[in-house]
């Protein structure tokens, strides 16, 4: 408490030293004798700020449609709002007249005369602004563009997204390659190993492209009858995108010794620790994920390379409306 008091005292002293004594209001003869600021340049600058904001908002829209690169989108949207903010701050300080008005209290009943005076006064409030048209125009352009930029992403929503969610580049016969596009051969992994794989020739950033391939002891596998034969020589592949929030499932707990570790081989998502039992079709054994990872049926071709034996068993990707729960 004592410390707080001292700090407040210091603050008061600092203010006094820096600003001097507050000027008594009486020294101001009549606050209504306003001095209008040199506003033409200020108005131009404010208009430039508004137009820059508009230009950046247009750049955002164009980028969103043509080249949706997240850092660029963020930079244009952010700079647009920043220049809008500066234009508004600048206008509020430099363009709008800064005066102290003193309203004298009088009778509540105003006569006709007084009404007219007040109306004049209100009208006179804008008399310092000479390029009203320019500012209003710039403001309208800016508002329109920023509003449009805010609305454009709405075009990405809608019912037509459904088909895209279910699609994945995996087809029967597609070769599995690693991130350097080398085919994955059946002698690549030891039991207990993992590798991330992609369909040959596909876009690796596609949500449905990446799968994680693990190799387990074939004797440990407990597939459902429908999935028998999907995991030759203990090779099992699942979508690498967690069905909870879409993180990359990058941890593979592979017990070295089954005799001492109670739980078996499992894929673990590092974001929220959803844990998927790889021996039982990626059944969720822990964590918030609502459904198993989609499985990719595998086969080994004559040259010993891993190939897809079909598409993914389910929609890849995170949970969303109607897609979060377990499926048959």
């Amino acid at each position, binding site marked *: 408490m004592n410390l707080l008091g001292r700090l407040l005292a210091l603050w008061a002293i600092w203010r006094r030293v820096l600003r001097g004594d507050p*000027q008594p209001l009486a020294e101001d003869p009549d606050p209504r004798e306003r001095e209008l600021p040199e506003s033409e340049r200020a108005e131009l600058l404010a208009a430039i700020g508004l137009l820059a904001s508009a230009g950046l908002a247009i750049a955002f829209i164009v980028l969103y449609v043509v080249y949706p690169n997240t850092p660029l989108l963020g930079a244009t949207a952010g700079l647009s709002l920043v220049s809008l903010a500066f234009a508004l701050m600048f206008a509020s300080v430099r363009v709008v007249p800064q005066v102290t008005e003193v309203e004298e209290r009088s009778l509540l009943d105003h006569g006709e005369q007084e009404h007219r005076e007040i109306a004049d006064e209100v009208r006179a409030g804008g008399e310092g602004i000479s390029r009203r048209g320019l500012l209003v125009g710039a403001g309208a352009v800016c508002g329109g563009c920023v509003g449009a930029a805010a609305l454009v992403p709405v075009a990405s929503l809608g019912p037509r997204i459904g088909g895209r969610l279910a699609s994945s580049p995996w087809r029967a016969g597609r070769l599995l390659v690693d991130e350097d596009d080398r085919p994955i051969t059946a002698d690549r*992994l030891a039991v207990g*190993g993992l590798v991330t794989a992609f369909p040959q020739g596909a876009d690796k950033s596609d949500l449905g492209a990446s799968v994680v391939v693990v190799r387990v002891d074939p004797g440990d596998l407990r597939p459902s009858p429908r999935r028998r034969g999907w995991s030759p020589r203990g090779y099992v592949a699942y979508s690498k995108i967690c069905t909870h929030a879409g993180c990359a499932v990058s941890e593979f707990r592979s*017990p070295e010794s089954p005799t001492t570790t109670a739980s078996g081989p499992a894929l673990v998502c590092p974001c929220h620790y959803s844990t998927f039992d790889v021996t039982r079709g990626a059944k969720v054994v822990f964590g918030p994920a609502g459904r198993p990872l989609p499985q990719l049926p595998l086969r080994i071709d004559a040259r010993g390379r891993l190939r897809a034996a079909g598409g993914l068993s389910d929609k890849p990707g995170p949970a969303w409306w109607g897609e979060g729960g377990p499926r048959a």
Partner: protein
Amino acid sequence: MRRRLATRALAALGVLCLALGTVAMTVARPDASHAQPPADPRHGRDLFVGGCSSCHGLDARGIPHRGPNLRGVGALSADFYLRTGRMPLAHPDDEPIRAHSVYSAADQADMVAYIGGFGGPAIPSVNAAAGNVAEGKQLFTDNCAGCHQVVGQGGIVTPNAIAPSLENEVQPVDVAEAVRIGPYVMPVFSDRQLTRSQVDDLARYVQHIQDLPNDGGWGIGNIGPIPEGLVLWGLGIGVLVLVARIVGERTTS
């Protein structure tokens, strides 16, 4: 005068000989273990029976639900678990973690010789100095960082395991052994997946993170962008408050 000169010359020669001798000894014996007497597997067996057989069995074939069969795991695995102090475990359900070994280096070598005598992979040779730290970081990010974090901070693997921190005491040979064994719940990396030169790169990178320079002055735990972002938000909010204070100042004219 002449005598003093001769004395000095002799002394200098002596120092030179000593230096050359040290260099020669170092070159001739790159590994300190070569200096030890050859390992004695019989003594190793005695130690094994005393310290390990309650879980791994008297014949090292393992006991169901207590400890795995050690025949065929090779000197590689025995060396890793004994030298890093992960074995012996107090309780078979515990996770083996790095500790000071209860056995002397000579006893460890004897036990490694005993287990290695059943066959299996030998202790790998690794040359971290030949590794490329940039390649190593790429490999570490791709293969190890999922659990160990990108600077080896370590992490959690559900339901009950930890990926150990690699920031302290980790030798290059530990890395070379661990990738082949996959200790506890770690995945196994075959030599087709990580070649020997890639293991050199990895070992070089892990050596690099043992003493990581914090050029920014504050590593914030080295656990990545989330704490860094939190700090930035903290600073950023301070700046915003300051800006708001200045903007909101009443101008008296």
